[in-house]
């Protein structure tokens, strides 16, 4: 017997079932279809403004830095300013997310390269799919628009987030994702990112920048 | 639940616990005093042990045999009270588990479990006692024994009663909810580890500055007292019931009988 058949039949023997019982199958189908939300966390239930404020507070609590701008048009300048303030070269790498594409990068002196990172970039910019207020978590989806490597290889990760994409909790975010990708459809990777990379593996001392970015900067577009 | 009316006082079967029975009867008499002061009629049926040592050593048969005796001895009372969270926890939480597959004993075990309580939580939670009269004076710290704390929720009740005694000052030690390392046969079978755990406990006790250490379980108390004495520490160790009942004439745990006389 194949390992697969063996394991499944062991499970069924232990449970005293054969796998084709209608009620069991129906229970499973129903749960997968309905995807119940379970316990709802009250802190995510606030108004749009409260959600945004909670997101900002929680992201900062996780040691991200946050700046809010009024419109998409202000993003390149805000990023240029962030790089200047941190004495970083005016150079970024990014994907071809249409929301980033339409921003007036030419108004700044930023030198821009495109596509995935080879590990030599100091700074990269990705556009977030969403933000989750309850823990200040960014939600990034993989693709050529926002290459996954840009979230992890640069020392300084910058994420652009539309305020309208901030959900109260994870469940609302999943609803939004299902709406975008279809039920059961998933981007190749969904990254939840809550603050910059860190490790406490040496003497329980928390240090930033273990393998991923030492710093995470979030630019929130309010308009 | 029976009411404490003049017509019929609450009949309490005191499960004195084997350790108190053998090692420190004064705790049993303190428990009797506290219960009688609260209006209970206390009886002590012939008894041995709750069976926990067998249960925790994996000897389910012996544990059941002993538990069956305990059920028979105590089921006629309105309540069963023990000056121990561990033994009360054994009856309350584990007797039903021991007999879950026995159609005759399961209901009897469940009934006994329901009316069995640790002494101090019985006084406070069931009888509604809010203060006791005790002449004890001193700075005390209270160790939360594991079974009482985690199986029965004994935490605030001893503190409530202690804080009402005029001569008592309660100071909390660090890590008061951490195990003292007793664990029944564990203290003997894994003596080295038990020693390491109790050493941390006595360090916390000493650092608290209290002159008396209290707890609600004699096993833990003997362990902590034995360690404090081996370390040459002068902290006195007593069961919380002795302090709540007052009028103490027994020397602290592990202290010479002559010293108190």
């Amino acid at each position: 017997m194949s390992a697969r058949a063996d394991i499944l039949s062991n499970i069924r023997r232990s449970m005293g079932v054969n796998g084709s019982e209608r009620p069991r199958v129906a229970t499973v189908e129903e749960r997968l279809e309905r995807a119940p939300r379970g316990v709802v966390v009250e802190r995510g239930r606030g108004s749009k403004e409260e959600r945004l404020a909670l997101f900002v507070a929680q992201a900062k609590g996780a040691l991200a830095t946050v700046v809010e701008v009024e419109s998409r048009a202000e993003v390149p300048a805000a990023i240029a300013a962030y790089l200047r303030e941190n004495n970083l070269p005016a150079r970024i790498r990014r994907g071809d997310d249409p929301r980033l594409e339409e921003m007036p990068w030419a108004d700044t002196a930023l030198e821009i390269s495109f596509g995935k990172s080879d590990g030599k970039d100091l700074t990269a910019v990705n556009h977030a799919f969403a933000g989750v207020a309850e823990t200040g978590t960014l939600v990034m989806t993989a693709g050529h628009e926002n290459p996954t490597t840009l979230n992890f290889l640069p020392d300084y990760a910058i994420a652009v987030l539309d305020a309208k994409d901030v959900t109260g909790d994870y469940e609302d975010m999943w609803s939004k994702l299902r709406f975008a990708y279809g039920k059961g459809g998933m981007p190749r990777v969904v990254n939840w990112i809550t603050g910059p990379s860190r490790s406490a593996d040496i003497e329980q001392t928390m240090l930033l920048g273990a393998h991923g970015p030492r710093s995470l900067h979030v630019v929130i577009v309010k308009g | 639940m029976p009411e404490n009316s003049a017509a019929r006082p609450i009949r309490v079967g005191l499960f004195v616990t084997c350790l108190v029975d053998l090692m420190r009867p004064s705790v049993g008499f303190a428990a009797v005093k506290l219960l009688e002061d609260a209006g209970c009629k206390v009886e002590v049926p012939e008894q041995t042990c709750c069976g926990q040592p067998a249960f925790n050593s994996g000897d389910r048969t012996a544990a059941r045999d002993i538990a069956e005796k305990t059920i028979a001895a105590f089921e006629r009372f309105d309540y069963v009270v023990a000056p121990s969270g561990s033994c009360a926890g054994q009856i309350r939480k584990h007797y039903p588990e021991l007999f879950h597959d026995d159609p005759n004993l399961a209901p009897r075990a469940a009934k006994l479990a329901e009316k069995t309580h640790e002494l101090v939580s019985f006084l406070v939670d069931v009888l509604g006692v809010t203060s006791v009269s005790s002449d004890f004076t001193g700075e005390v710290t209270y160790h939360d024994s594991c079974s009482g704390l985690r199986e029965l929720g004994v935490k605030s009740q001893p503190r409530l009663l202690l804080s009402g005694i005029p001569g008592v000052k309660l100071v909390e030690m660090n890590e008061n909810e951490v195990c003292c390392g007793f664990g029944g046969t564990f203290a003997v079978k894994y003596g080295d580890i038990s020693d390491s755990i109790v050493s941390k406990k006595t360090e916390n006790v000493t650092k608290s500055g209290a002159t008396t250490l209290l707890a609600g379980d004699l096993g833990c108390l003997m362990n902590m007292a034995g360690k404090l004495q081996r370390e040459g520490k002068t902290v006195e160790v007593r069961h919380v019931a002795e302090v709540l009942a007052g009028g103490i004439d027994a020397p602290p745990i592990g202290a010479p009988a002559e010293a108190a006389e």
Partner: protein
Amino acid sequence: MTAHPTSPRFKDNARQALDDAQLQKALGNVRVNFIERRAAVAAKLPEFEELRDSARDIKDHVLAHLDLYLERYEEAVTRSGGQVHWARTAAEAREAVLAICRRVGAKTVTKGKSMISEEIALNDAIEAAGMKAVETDLGEYIIQLRHEAPSHIIAPAVHLNATQVESDFRKHHTHLDPARDLSQPTQLLTEARTILREKFLAADVGITGANFLIAETGTSIIVTNEGNGDLTQTLPKVHIVIASIEKVVPTLEDASQILRVLARSATGQEMSVYTTFSTGPRRPGDVDGPEEYHVVLLDNGRSAMLGTEFQDMLRCIRCGACMNHCPVYHAVGGHAYGWVYPGPMGAVLTPTLIGVDKGGHLPNASTFCGRCESVCPVRIPLPKLMRHWREREFERHLSPATVRWGLGFWAFFAKRPKLYRLATGLAMRALARLGRTKGRFASLPFASGWTDHRDFPAPQGATFQDQWKARRNGRTA
């Protein structure tokens, strides 16, 4: 290392650990940090206890339908272009991984932290097959240099201090300038980051574990703070996930419920830094990500735990809260347990995986203080499960003869109240007379495990029951 458990020598291991001053100092960190952080972050979430119930219920639901969810999960993985490999045993799992590595001609394999990898001793197998395995979690990397097993399931190097790490780096990173200052943890981190960055970029295969597998979407989830897992799985051509069968949950919502209690219970964070949901290999148009995505699904005795008194153990989400709160773990650390899984969860799981004849000490070395159960995010009744092991040992006559004899002797009297009163009445009076002057004994022949370390209080004299009876009869004892 994992092939040869030292669990049967638990007592010796423990003795060594207790005498290791450096280890004792390191364990002091566990005792304070993890506990305070968890308590603080749990207090900030009013729904925390309710979420623990929810997490328990989800896992119970999955276990009751495990066969069906595994089938759905496999279908979804296949749909997304990935491949599932089923492995009955550790050997089959190792072989599944090696077969993939050989096929793609792998030279270097990077690894995210995975307890399943430890369970199946994967690194040894990779090395034996002539490939290089590189652990990338900082703690795992450090212990790999030392050829040690993790001493904690989420903080593998928690038993070490910075000086030891520095000397390991100097020994293995031969390019290091001896004059370079590595005295601070931050300098050690920078050194590890530099070294491992090269490994990430050079790796042919990346292996990660999984915290959850999602039946609905065929997704695997990893949770890290460092980002090493993401670099491990994103940069090489091939990503292999190794996970045990009980990791599956129905939906994204179910995973989210459990994620809310995972980091809070583990590190005391509201959420770990990186929670990554991976579904299949690189897609058309993608500029990065692996070209192949494989999942090795391991049983290794788990299917046989279903329907037994140990089934609850399969709810475990490997957060480490039980060991963080365990007085025995605080005393001896993780290595004393002698195999992959330490602490209370290890005391239950290890005997199922290596046999109770080898792992029998572990469920006995517990005070049953219950603190592990009180913090377990999926409410596993750990003391009860340890007790079930003790019952099996007792039934199989595996408990030591002295213990059995002593217990039998005591039970004989405990079952006979009249005889008990007679015997104890005499014994206590005698013992009380012996101990009267000092009030205690510094040594007792039958309890040296006790009196080696602490005094034994002398009994007061006549037993309570004798005194009570005398009092009722109108006289004093």
